């Protein structure tokens, strides 16, 4: 089963993303910030990581960079979930090794359609 | 106790047979009970349970017909003696004395109250057309507590109104 790590500090966003993914048959694990996401990632393997950018403790960009340092996450798709669609943020994400980004407002159909670009 | 053995005894869904039980009735059903030698009926859907009499805990300064409260599975349920409330017969407590616990929702508030009666007798099917207006000729039971009367053979069953029954009298002001 395809396993996805969802990292967001907002409970409701996290719940919604998770709910949407689960309803499409994916397995999800949630983390409430980058730090928790990283520690979860260290002890598990995932087929995809979806992370918010703005979070306390560790932001999404840092998380992405840290994940890429892990052997298990060298090629794992990492999507940034953000309202900040400015080129600047995208570049920062790319530089940290993000695979792509999802733009909020969060739309469940769009989410399911786009993640097909990075997972089987 | 072996859980496995227990589990084997639990019937699975669909094993229950409903044959022989007449669930479909044309009219309302009423639980009938005795107060002295008179028969009364109450909407069976309100009946929570029928309990044997136990001495309740007194409520200070309560009206005479309020016997007190009992513990019904963790809920505090007041007990009212219908014989005292309606002044019918004698309020004696014997082995056949029972408490009919009624749960009824009125104006969004659900109340559970137990009523002491002399004995429960039967379940009565009564079509709406069979229910007649009760003649307003005094009697012990206040008119607003009566929904109507039904003839059953030679006897008359007085149908009581649960909402009115559950109206509580305020405590004595001392």
């Amino acid at each position, binding site marked *: 089963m395809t396993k996805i790590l969802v990292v967001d*500090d*907002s*409970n*409701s*966003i996290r719940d*919604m993303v998770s*709910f*949407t993914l689960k309803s*499409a048959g994916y397995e999800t694990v949630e983390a409430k910030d980058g730090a928790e996401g990283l520690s979860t990632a260290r002890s598990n393997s995932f087929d995809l990581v979806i992370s918010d950018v*703005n979070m*306390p403790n560790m932001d999404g960009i840092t998380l992405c960079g840290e994940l*890429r340092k892990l052997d298990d996450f*060298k*090629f*794992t*798709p*990492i999507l940034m979930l953000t*309202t900040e*669609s400015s*080129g600047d943020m*995208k*570049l920062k994400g*790319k530089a940290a*090794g*993000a*695979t*792509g980004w999802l*733009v*909020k*407002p*969060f739309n*469940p*159909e*769009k989410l*399911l359609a786009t993640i*097909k*670009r*990075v997972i*089987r | *106790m072996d859980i496995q053995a227990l589990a084997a005894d639990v019937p699975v869904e669909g094993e229950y047979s409903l044959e022989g039980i007449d669930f479909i009735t044309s009219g309302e059903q009423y639980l009938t009970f005795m107060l002295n030698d008179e028969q009364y009926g109450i909407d069976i859907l309100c009946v929570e349970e029928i309990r044997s009499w136990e001495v309740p*805990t*007194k*409520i*200070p*300064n309560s009206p005479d017909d309020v016997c*007190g*409260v*009992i513990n019904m599975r*963790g*809920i*505090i*349920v*007041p007990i009212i003696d219908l014989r005292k409330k309606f002044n019918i017969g004698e309020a004696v407590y014997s082995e056949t004395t029972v408490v009919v616990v009624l749960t009824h929702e009125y104006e*969004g508030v659900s*109340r*559970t*109250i137990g009523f002491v009666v002399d004995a429960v007798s039967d379940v009565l099917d009564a079509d709406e057309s069979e229910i007649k207006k009760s003649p307003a000729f005094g009697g012990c039971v206040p008119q607003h507590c009566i929904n109507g009367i039904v003839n059953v053979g030679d006897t008359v069953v007085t149908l009581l109104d649960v909402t009115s029954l559950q109206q*509580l009298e305020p*405590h004595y002001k*001392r």
Partner: protein
Amino acid sequence: MSVDLSQFIPSFLEESFEGLELMESSLLNLEQGDDETINSIFRAAHSIKGGAGTFGFEHVTEFTHLVETLLDEMRDGRREITQNDVELLLKSVDCMRLLIEAIRDEQECDRTEIDETAKLLTIALNQTASVDVDNNETGSGTTNQQVTQNTLWDITFIPEHHLVQTGNDPLLLFNALADLGPITVEANCKDLPPITDIDPTELYISWHLTLDSAASEEDIREVFEWVEDECQLIISQPVKDQQDSQQPEEIVIDKQGGDFTSVSSASDSSEQVLASAVADNASSTLESTTTTKSQKQPSKTKADVGSIRVGVDKVDSLINLVGELVITQSMLSELGNDFDLSKIERLTSGLEQLLQNTKELQESVMRIRMLPISFAFNRFPRLVHDLSNKMNKEIELVLKGEQTELDKTVMEQIGDPLTHLVRNAVDHGIETAEQRLASGKPAKGVITLDAYHQGGSIVIEISDDGSGINRQAVFDKAVEKGVVDKNTVLNDNQVFDLIFEPGFSTAKEISDISGRGVGMDVVKKNIQSLGGRIQVESEPGKGSTFKVNLPLTLAILDGQLVRVGSETYIIPLITIVESLQAKPEHINRVSGDMLLYRLREDNVPIIPVCKLFNIDAEHQRVEDALLVVVESDGQKVGLMVDDLLAQQQVVIKSLQDNYQQVEGISGATILGDGSVAMILDIPGMITMAMNNASQSQQKYGDIAKNLEGVMS
């Protein structure tokens, strides 16, 4: 496929309110200004905007966008943080709260203040030149040009070698492309190095694809959206369709640009149309779901139910305890299977274990209802901030013991009384800066809120370093109001307690801050109805301290079981001063049938419980009975009972649920044997006894007057 997200609206609302509270408290602390604080404010606004956008709450999204933009400027250092901006942001938080409350209550809210604040925000934003409110943010969704005919697209995709290291996989991209229409793929391996030089983490292949699809360029580009910076992507239409045959229309995406702002204006507008259509859709589905919901249940009850967010640790500890309980239970039932007396020791230890498990489980369950007092405290920084501005006073609010936990129900009901006390401290406690300086104090006054546990209760202290309570003014006022006789001799505490008398207010003028027609008497009454008490201490020139004592929970009570006749009653342990066997020489009969007991200096009126409750008792004479001296509201009385039984914790059950309120009784509980016992309401019983006494006053002249004199 359609996913219904409306079930997440309540959690979004809850989270938004938390976010707003965080914004507010952070804004109030921002005065020092540090990056992390402004970041956390930004994050909160950002989350609210994101969530609102998802559910199609456009009002919230639009308004929050302005707030977010302003915060973003502050965050990036493009904007100085001025006091004006902070005030504006605080006001904005209020507006956002109004908007979100309107969603929660399914009502329209008053837009005037919101529109006004939005205008102020826009003006503030325009002051900085660099601002551009980019409405494109929502825009990178599906773009859909009106292409009706299928086109044969020619796509050249030359990824950079490190592409796969960002988690992208060309095969999946081609799959996504294939969703748009039939494709052909041709790989170009000319860059492939000799096998000995191949780095397995690099990608050396490029592709040439054709796509037969009605999709637009935008659609195709969107598939490659995430890799456009790491590849060369050439999308062209077949030559036969070209209007301009000079050269094939090529779009080579600039490696650095990567933004959609270059999208033609035609597609831009269609984007917006689409975006708003989506939003309309979302809001209409929302409306329909919420209306069905409100049909199901009256909205009144909905607000009352409430929810608690419980930490996972608390739930885990519950699960552990239940696990232990199950083990104990199975151990006991196994023991019961073939029990003989030789196993009595194991039975005893098993029962002991069961007792322990139950106790721990009970404590854990109670812990779930406990919330840190910060939930009640966090409204005060804003309150004090606003009030001190209004009153032209300089006040610093110090919060202590915010993690002290309190039952949720108590918390909800203590908010208003505390607010009143804090308002009172700002209004009457702290002096103006001039007055303070004149009396040699720092210009800035300090109000301290402190909470701590003491025994089975929580103590909340509200203290100020203001002028203190003017003893003489209070006394004069009390005399003027007829509360006390001018010849009465009272100590300081007794005088201060007068401010809790009904209709008492020492403020010369009724101000709109604390003089809202609600006096200290209401505060006291509210606190008492929670089973608590309030005291005040004050020192002239140094300030005042109000001390509120509350039970930790309303659900469980430490009780003393007593017997009167055949009935068992429970006296709340917190009210008991002492229990004693009455000594005949200390009993005084006054005014006919009034009994007083001399307890050291005090004369304690005796209330025979049997008489008050109209029941039979074993002992009719005080000399034979036991006295339980209880205290409520500073008044001691001796309850006359037949016997003292055990002390135990009891779970409070309502009598009102199925019955009605009973004078002198605060509730009922179920004892170990399954029987019901009444819990005595001590203040209520004292009132009953007083009323009884004043009724006999009509019979016996002024006996009761004497009694009251003795009692007060």
